[in-house]
């Protein structure tokens, strides 16, 4: 572990890969450490139609091109790793992986993004892949002529519910509030669809079945009444959680676990920057993650130049 990288980036989603492109193109030695698949949420996106300058394409395509750009500029990327320890307070930052390897850098950019929120109720693990899905485009056809529930009340839930009526005979949207958080046009489209029914102010408490999903237990949050509702499928779209659990106590966060940053993407720890869906912000898109990644990279570059200058001065100044 002799090498000290200029910049170490945690996460290879849109924000992390963009930061990697900028820092490595700026001739800073850069290492990206990524826990899951490279591309992050972009590879969960079948169709991206709002990335400026690119006509309708897949998230996988954008992610592959970003990865290639970063690598071509000399950025090192290690994926499917697990970081066990962070040491961020010293001028030289260090992380230790679960397999014992250690990496050091003068600056760190946190870009761990987010992940789909799960319900964490009995049966959810058991029926994943045999009735429970998180991707309508991927698995919709398995539910042809079946009755299903969609859990959630945001844009994804309502848009995917409408898409699923191309396959399922009946789609019941279960939502915990008496109103939806989605855009009005998405709500209207769902309300006008004869195959969609609504169960409001209710939540799921269990998935039931033997080999396959056969029913969900629904709790009416107003009356407390619970009942089993027969379905063969369930799609869950209840928002995202920031992947910041392992960073708690290392940098300041808000109560939702989102990292607090300055306009230059600086966190509460000197030399540690953050970007993308894991920071406090209102809109989470590829474009905004890319913008954050750019700013974090340029700020990190400035920080690294400062650290190196100080180190040089220390060498030149006689004791």
């Amino acid at each position, binding site marked *: 572990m002799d090498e000290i990288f200029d910049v170490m980036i945690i996460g290879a989603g849109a924000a992390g890969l963009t930061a990697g492109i900028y820092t490595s193109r700026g001739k800073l030695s850069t290492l990206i450490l990524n826990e899951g698949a490279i591309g992050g949420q972009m590879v969960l996106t079948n169709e991206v139609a709002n990335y400026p300058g690119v006509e309708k394409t897949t998230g996988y395509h954008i992610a592959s091109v970003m990865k290639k750009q970063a690598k071509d500029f000399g950025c090192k990327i290690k994926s499917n790793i697990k970081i066990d320890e962070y040491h961020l307070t010293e001028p030289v930052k260090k992380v230790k992986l679960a397999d014992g390897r250690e990496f050091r850098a003068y600056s760190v950019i946190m870009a761990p993004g987010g992940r789909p929120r799960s319900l964490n109720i009995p049966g959810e693990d058991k029926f*994943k892949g045999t009735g429970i899905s998180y991707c309508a485009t991927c698995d919709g056809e398995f539910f042809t002529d079946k009755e299903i529930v969609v859990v959630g009340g945001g844009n994804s839930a309502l848009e995917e519910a409408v898409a699923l009526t191309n396959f399922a005979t009946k789609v019941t949207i279960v939502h915990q509030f008496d109103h939806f958080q989605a855009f009005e046009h998405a709500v209207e489209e769902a309300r006008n669809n004869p195959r969609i029914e609504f169960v409001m102010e209710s939540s799921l408490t269990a998935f039931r079945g033997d080999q396959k999903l056969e029913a969900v237990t629904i709790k009416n949050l107003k009356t407390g009444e619970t009942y089993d509702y027969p379905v063969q499928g369930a799609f869950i779209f209840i928002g995202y959680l920031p992947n910041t659990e392992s960073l708690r106590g290392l940098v300041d966060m808000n109560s939702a676990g989102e990292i607090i940053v300055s306009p230059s993407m600086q966190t509460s720890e000197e030399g540690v920057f953050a970007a993308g869906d894991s920071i406090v912000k209102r809109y989470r898109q590829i474009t905004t993650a890319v913008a954050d990644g750019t700013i974090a990279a340029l700020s990190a570059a400035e920080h690294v130049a400062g650290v190196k200058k100080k180190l040089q001065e220390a060498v030149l100044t006689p004791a």
Partner: protein
Amino acid sequence: MAMLQTGLQEIETAEELKNVINEYENVMVCCGRMGPMCIPVYEAMEELEEERENVKFFTMAFDSPESDIIKGDPACAGFMGLPFTMYYKNGKTAHATSSIQSMDQIKTVLDEKFGK
């Protein structure tokens, strides 16, 4: 004709699949599309291909009729999520999973069915 753009070798016919599972002791085949639930599994397999010499890793296109051999495998009865990931030992199905799997979940199956 190959349909999947991954770094793994794609099996294109049922005949080829039969040959592969008879030729090699331990085989993992991910049968899917270029979609969000499948890509993370291919990526994990690409990484594992470098470290696990005792296992051969392949893909197969879910949309090819040739993959009916996987879709019709009794181990896949009731599967309702892509990809269908198959583990074969000595020519026989040893395990199968439906939908996205994490690196840890895949490693657990590989360790259990094929040894470390």
